[in-house]
Structure formats: structure tokens, C-alpha cells
């Protein structure tokens, strides 16, 4: 009879796939942690913690390389088909996207020394809530990957709108603050970039979610009706996180 379980006849294939899943969980966990550490460093002006985030980004980069190598090898050696193939392609793409999320966290951490007096600026009060939701999206998108949960992936995609709305509020608040307090423009600009980084993290979490959806169902995720709100700014070029 047909074995409808998930085990492959060739057990080594399962161990490759499980190793990859473990590494994806790890890179996801590290990126999520990088976001929360960077935000904590920002809130407390903790330069040491900020440096730690920058240092630890190397681990995320390393993980990405290892994931890509093993994915590449597995595709070459096991000739995966159907959902196995989709999962491996998704793994390959997710590792790149999650590495990028780590870069955005690093970019936030790098701005910490430049905004040590920013707690005076009112718009900063919105950032912790925004980062909390962005982190949740990262975590949920990777949970969805681990469970191959297309519904949770859709949910992540939908919730990204909240992060976008936060960004728009912060954008307006920062601009207003700049107009009223021109001497703060430097620090305020950094805050705006931090908000933009969080907004990009949310977008990348939805990219992960889209790949999860594809891996789970074999279909592209139905388009979210985004960008129809005229107040939503057109996506700016992403801020380089690798500097």
C-alpha cells in the first residue's frame, strides 16, 4: 500500500531536509533576536548591545551560506520532486530573505550611537509597538514554514498592513516634528530610517510567507490588495544594510 506519511524511502533524504529545516528555524530565530536586541539597544541607548547585534549578524550570514550549500547539494544529489522540490526552492529563497532581515536589524543597531538623545522626539514612542509586530511577522512566517501552514502565511501577509500603517503614521509624525524642531532634523531622519527598516522587515516577512504558501500549496499566493491607499508612499529603494 501507499505510504502516505512524510518519510522517504531513502532516509538520508529526510535527514537532509530535517537539517535544513533546523537551520531555517535557527536563522529565523537569530534574525528575530537581532530585531529585538537592536530595538532594546535603541530604547536604552545601549551601545554595547548595539555592537553585539552588528557582530552577531556574521552568524546569520554564515547560516545563510550553509543553508544555500546544503539546499544546492540536496537538489543536485536527491533530485527532489513535487512538494520536496517546492520546499527546497522555498528554503533557498527564504534563507536569502531572512539574511536580509538580519541586515535591517544590524542597520538599526548601527544607528543607535547616532540617536542617543532621540528619546526627546515624540514619534519614537511608536517604534517599539511597530517593531513588536514586525518581529511577530518574522516569527509567524517561519512558524508557517515549519508547519507548512498556508493559512498562517496568508495571515502574515494580511498583517503586514499594520506595519505599513505604523510606518505611515511615523512618517507623518516625524515630518511634523522636523518642521516644528529643525534642530532635531538629523536625529529625526535616523528615526525615520529605523521605521523604514522595520517596514522593510515586514515586507520581507511577507516574502517568506509567500514562499511558504507556494511550498505548501504549489500555487502562488493570491495578491493582497496593497498600494491602493493613495497615502501609502511608493516603496523607496531599500536602505543598504550591508554598509
Amino acid at each position, binding site marked *: 500500500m*501507499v505510504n502516505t506519511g512524510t518519510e522517504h524511502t531513502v532516509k538520508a533524504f529526510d535527514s537532509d531536509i530535517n537539517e535544513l529545516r533546523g537551520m531555517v528555524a535557527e536563522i529565523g530565530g537569530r534574525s528575530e533576536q537581532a530585531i529585538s536586541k537592536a530595538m532594546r539597544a535603541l530604547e536604552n541607548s545601549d551601545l554595547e548591545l548595539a555592537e553585539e547585534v552588528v557582530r552577531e549578524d556574521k552568524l546569520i550570514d554564515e547560516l545563510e551560506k550553509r543553508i544555500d550549500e546544503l539546499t544546492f547539494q540536496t537538489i543536485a544529489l536527491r533530485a527532489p520532486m*513535487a512538494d520536496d522540490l517546492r520546499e527546497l526552492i522555498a528554503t533557498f529563497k527564504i534563507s536569502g530573505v531572512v539574511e536580509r532581515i538580519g541586515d535591517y536589524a544590524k542597520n538599526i543597531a548601527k544607528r543607535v550611537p547616532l540617536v542617543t538623545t532621540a528619546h526627546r522626539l515624540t514619534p519614537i514612542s511608536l517604534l517599539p509597538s511597530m517593531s513588536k509586530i514586525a518581529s511577530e511577522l518574522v516569527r509567524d512566517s517561519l512558524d508557517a514554514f515549519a508547519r507548512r501552514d498556508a493559512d498562517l502565511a496568508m495571515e502574515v501577509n494580511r498583517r503586514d498592513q499594520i506595519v505599513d500603517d505604523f510606518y505611515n503614521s511615523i512618517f507623518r509624525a516625524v515630518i511634523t516634528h522636523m518642521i516644528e524642531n529643525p534642530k532635531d532634523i538629523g536625529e529625526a531622519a535616523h528615526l525615520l530610517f529605523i521605521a523604514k527598516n522595520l517596514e522593510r522587515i515586514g515586507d520581507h516577512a511577507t516574502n517568506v510567507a509567500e514562499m511558504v504558501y507556494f511550498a505548501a500549496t504549489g500555487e502562488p499566493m493570491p495578491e493582497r490588495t496593497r498600494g491602493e491607499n493613495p497615502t501609502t508612499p511608493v516603496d523607496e529603494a531599500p536602505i543598504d544594510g550591508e554598509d
Partner: protein
Amino acid sequence: MNDDLTMQEASESANMTDSAPTDMASEASTPKMTARNVNVFYGDKQAINDVSIDVNMDNVTAFIGPSGCGKSTFLRCMNRMNDTIPIARVTGDIQLDGDDIYAPKMDVVQLRARVGMVFQKPNPFPKSIYDNIAYGPRIHGLATGKEELDNIVESSLQRAGLWGEVKDRLHDSGTALSGGQQQRLCIARAIAVDPEVILMDEPCSALDPIATAKIEELIHELRGKYAIVIVTHNMQQAARVSQKTAFFHLGTLVEYGETTDIFTNPREEKTRDYITGRYG
């Protein structure tokens, strides 16, 4: 403005459709062979259970499935090779160009010329390369003189991609060729009687990867000239050579669709389990 453009585009595309040779288009999309509700019994044992499938000229169709799933049995129904097995009984309807191939008036020898077959092990006649190819045209009276027969032999070997390798030794024995060459000789032999359908039953399983690649390239070149059906255990091969794939399991046709869909996003769990190597 936009409306005008749309109208123009619409009329252009309509013109293109009109100017296309419609009879050719319909020939390609009309099934060459159709099977409806086919059952095969070996004595009391049912080997094929209610299989219906269409085979087109413009596609290579691959039959895949585990051993004993019925894919070869079904293939053998398509040119009545099962007639040679006394206890085999076939019910249902199989048509070639709309003609019932199991009708009493059907000439089986003629049918097998129209629906040729290539087997797992290359089986050239113990004759010269030339005579291997010339045999079919001779008994079917397809050539009126030596020159015409020479032409058929050459063009068949050309089409099978073997001409360059054997043209200087046409009178050597066919069995002296390498395995891959022998298999291409068998394909050339099938082509020589100008068939419409070529059935291939694991044509590469006895060949090395290079000979296999040559056969696969040949299948690719023959596509469109003949309706080709290939049974293979090698899923990668099915993925490489076919446009349509049928998955058989326990005598039933579980799933039949575009090869790309079957291998990237199969609808049936059984298909998925088989092609991903989860089959127990």
C-alpha cells in the same frame, strides 16, 4: 483609443488564427488514440481497471508507476500485443483515428505497423543492419524497387540518428552493434514501416547514460511526427522526455496531466508519494 487598440489586436489575432493551417492544428490536437473504460484480465486476475486516456500527436506521453501497476500491460493493449498471451482478456474501447482496434475486421499485422513498438531489451533480428530495416517495408510491400528500399533504409536510419554511425557497414550484423545503437536500430526498424504511433516499453533501461541521452534526444526529435508513448521506471526520464504524464497504480490510472504539473504540483497524494520517493 484603448478600445481601438483592443479591436485591432483582436482582429489581428483572429487573422492569425485564420491563416494558420487549420487542418494541421486540428490533427495535432485531436487524439490519435483514445482508450475508454479499458479493463484487462489475466485469467481471474484484473490487471487494468477502467482506464480511459487520450494520446495526442503533439505530445510525448509517459506512463509511470511502480512495478506491477499495469503501465506495460496497458501499453501492450494499444497495439494488441496482449493477444499473444492466451489468458489475457481485454474489455472496453481503444480507438486509433476513431477505428476500434479490437474490431474483428481490424488487421492486427497492419495495426502493429501503424502502432509500432520498441522493447526494453534491444531485439534486432540476427540479420544485417540493412535487412533489419528493410524487413518491414518488404513484407508490407512499401518499396517497389531496390532504390526505393535503399531510400527507406537510409531515411529511417537518419531519423533514428544512426545513419552516420553505420552507413559504411550496412551489411554487418545488427547484433554486432552496441546496446544503444541496437536500440536506435530497433527504433529505425519501427519507423521504416511509416507508423503513426510508437510505443516504447522501458527503451533505455538496458542502456548506459550516454546511450540513454541519445535515445531521449531522438524521442525529442521524433515528437510531432509520431504519437509517442513511453513506459519508464525512471521518473527523471519521464520528466525529461514527455509533455504528458500518466501515473498508474494497482491497475488504475491515478492521475494524467501535464508533465510539469505532475512533477511540481501533483493533485493526488498517491502520485506525490510515488514521485517524491515516499512510496512504501
